[in-house]
């Protein structure tokens, strides 16, 4: 199963959903991690959610990220019921309602949340 999402260059977040037990999750695998049922449904997220954690990275891990510091990373609880890690606009705070955009950063497409 190759889900077409930002990790494969498609500007979207994809949520997986189990047709058996109703579980929803984000890290893609071809089965439900709760009940084991194969072939989950792929649901394109509307990209809206609420910020639950933020950090501003000043020490980059590599040369490709160094020119981009400081950059903001967040954990966002999507309306579809899963939590995702992403970039965010500077100044984003816990509790903010945000929406996903997609930008090229450090040579790859990444989700960037901005105020909704």
């Amino acid at each position, binding site marked *: 199963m190759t889900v077409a999402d930002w*990790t494969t260059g498609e500007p979207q977040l994809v949520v997986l959903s189990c047709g058996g037990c109703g579980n929803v*999750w*984000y*890290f*893609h695998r071809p089965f439900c991690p709760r009940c084991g049922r194969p072939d989950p449904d792929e649901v394109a997220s509307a990209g809206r959610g609420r910020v*639950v*954690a*933020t*950090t*501003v*990275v*000043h*020490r*980059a*891990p*590599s*040369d*490709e*990220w160094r020119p*981009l510091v*400081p*950059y903001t*990373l*967040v*954990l966002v609880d999507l309306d579809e019921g899963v*939590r*995702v*890690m*992403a*970039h965010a606009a500077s100044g984003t705070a*816990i*509790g903010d309602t945000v929406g996903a955009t997609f930008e090229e*950063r*450090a040579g*790859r497409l*990444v989700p960037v949340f901005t105020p909704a």
Partner: protein
Amino acid sequence: MSYIAGSFATAFGRHEGQDTLGLMTQAATGALADAGLERGDIDGIICGYSTTMPHLMLATVFAEHFGIRPRYAAALQLGGATGLAMAATAHFVIQSKAASRLLIVAGENRLSGQTRDSAIQALAQVGHPRYEVPLGTTVPAYYGLIASAYLDGRGAGEADLAELAVAMRSHAVDSPGAHYREPITVEDVLVSRAVAEPLKLLDCCPVSDGGAAMVVTGDQVNDHCLRVLGSGQAHQHQHVSVVPDLLSYGAGPSSRMALDEAGIGLDRIRYAAVYDSFTVTLALLLEEIGLAPPGQAGALARDGHFSPGGAVPLNTHGGLLSYGHCGVAGAMSHMAELQRQLTGRAGARQIPGQPDVALLHGDGGVMSSHTSMVVALP
């Protein structure tokens, strides 16, 4: 029945020219001497891993190198929880009679053996390879996310977290092997350069070279053994993105399991050895275990609660935050210090009134793997 019969931590810091096997050898030699045992007395070995010497079979590589031929060998990988998990595994192995005298050893030239970028990138791989690492993450960034949720959820401030760094540094002043020993203030922490906000440089443990080892036995082989009363673990997630509750990670059930096996309550604990990779790590663990009320770990540290003269002395060698962090051996230094404190051999750092029961807790990954242990004088 099993006993921590010997333990040893090398000095942590920059040990130019030392490699993984060399540091492991120093540590193993020290722990054997502390236990009063010889190589030939050891029939089991448990090792961790080294980022500067990745190998499929580190336990047997080291056994051959050091010169022992055990009938039990294993290598374990649980990030920062590895050291304590190895001690717990030795406890299980002894109970099963698969071996009776085990050497547990780790060491790594994590600081001098690679570039800082290499260390940061290797450690960042505890994150998800597809959904986290490609975002330019680092371990401090994962913990920065956690720290923001802690400060928001508990109503604590960055100055509260800073108190924990100040406390660990104040302990390291009298700790000759510590990586950093110059006293610091809350203000020093707050103005140190931002790494992954809200975490600043002095909220983060250093990357160090060093080694540590323990000998765990089924019999009391000397007069300074500690008895293992109980152990517990909890492994609720790997990646921070899927943590259901950013204020609760598994330290509670892990430590309760250890205390239950020991048959004692938290109020009986007279010394704590708790993983402190970042100030927020220590705050969250202390509070989830119940050694501090929610949001109050920093305030208790400020009041001296965790100092050598306080109610529950904590990491009196300086912890990871000041003694240093060289990977698997990092948190094993907590055990070496604890054994000296409980057996009255801590020298200038000896706690008045010599504590008799201690709780250890280790965490690996991003608050992912939890291991706890209760030890006491026999």
